[in-house]
């Protein structure tokens, strides 16, 4: 998404330096961040070209801008300290939605797998031990509650936000919901792994445990990123 400049040119370009400084101050999903910064960069280049057209007889070859015009465009757009809270707010919401979407997609997929494993008909030796079944039921309930909460968060930061203001602490709530889901998945994976030692149908338990731990890793990483974003200062919406 970034403009095709050589590294030396990039370093010497005030617009590139400004965008790089802003990029270093922001945290959030890489794709959204790249898109927002690419858009800002294009706007700065347009503004600098407009300013150069009025003032410079011989603008630069690449963008048609002069360094003075680039600096003036940067001044008009705002310093990094002024811009970062507004950009970070959107990135924090994007990260929270990313985490909520992950919980919503993963948990409903895993719950039926656990249910089938825990309640599968067949010889007693092939079923999970009773304590493991009870523990999985509780963890499943917790995970289901986080999935429901994630659905509410997605709605609250999407179309519903037209009518209801988005609470400032909502991303932090999403982060801890994601963390709760990740912990429930980790404990479930552990339960399934231990239970596989006690059941004749162990390959299925091991497989379910491996899938669960993979899902745990994905959600835990997203929740961690969400907690980090939620701690950063953000601007109130305009």
């Amino acid at each position: 998404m970034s403009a095709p400049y050589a590294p030396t040119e990039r370093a010497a370009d005030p617009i590139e330096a400004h965008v790089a400084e802003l990029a270093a101050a922001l945290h959030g999903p890489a794709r959204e961040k790249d898109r927002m910064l690419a858009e800002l960069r294009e706007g700065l280049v347009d503004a600098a070209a407009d300013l150069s057209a009025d003032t410079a007889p011989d603008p630069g070859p690449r963008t048609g801008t002069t360094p003075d015009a680039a600096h003036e465009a940067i001044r008009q757009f705002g310093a990094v300290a002024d811009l970062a809270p507004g950009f970070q707010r959107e990135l924090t919401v994007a990260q929270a939605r990313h985490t909520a979407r992950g919980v919503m997609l993963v948990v409903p997929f895993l719950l039926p797998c656990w249910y089938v494993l825990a309640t599968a008909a067949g010889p007693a030796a092939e079923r999970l031990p009773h304590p493991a079944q009870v523990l999985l039921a509780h963890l499943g309930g917790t995970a289901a509650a986080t999935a429901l909460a994630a659905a509410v968060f997605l709605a609250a930061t999407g179309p519903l936000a037209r009518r209801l203001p988005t609470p400032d602490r909502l991303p932090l709530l999403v982060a801890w919901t994601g963390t709760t889901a990740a912990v429930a998945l980790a404990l479930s994976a552990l339960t399934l792994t231990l239970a596989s030692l006690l059941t004749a149908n162990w390959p299925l338990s091991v497989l379910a445990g491996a899938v669960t731990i993979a899902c745990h890793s994905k959600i835990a990483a997203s929740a961690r990123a969400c907690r980090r974003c939620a701690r950063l200062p953000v601007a109130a919406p305009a």
Partner: protein
Amino acid sequence: MKASEVRGHLDGLLLSVLESGPLHGYAVITAVQERSNGVLELRKGTIYPALNRLERLGLLRSTWESSGERKRRCYELTDAGRRSLETERKVWREFTAAIGSVLEPAPRPGAAT
């Protein structure tokens, strides 16, 4: 008029300039300034998160368009965005009428001159 005074009306301004057709971010900024004859001072960089938020709310949709080596993100109103713009206009008319009737009261009929 400073950027802080535009606060609270920015959504309506952005939706309004996009009513006539799709524009990229910088064109949105210049359209607001041209329509206000330069009276409205926007901190230009803050427009981009605002456009992003309006898209998240479903009031705008965006597409990336290529122009040579450059890529631009163009925004256009959705149906929900058009409805929201109508609401913003209605609220603004009511607000300005109410403020106007206080600041510039109409002369009372029969009042002594």
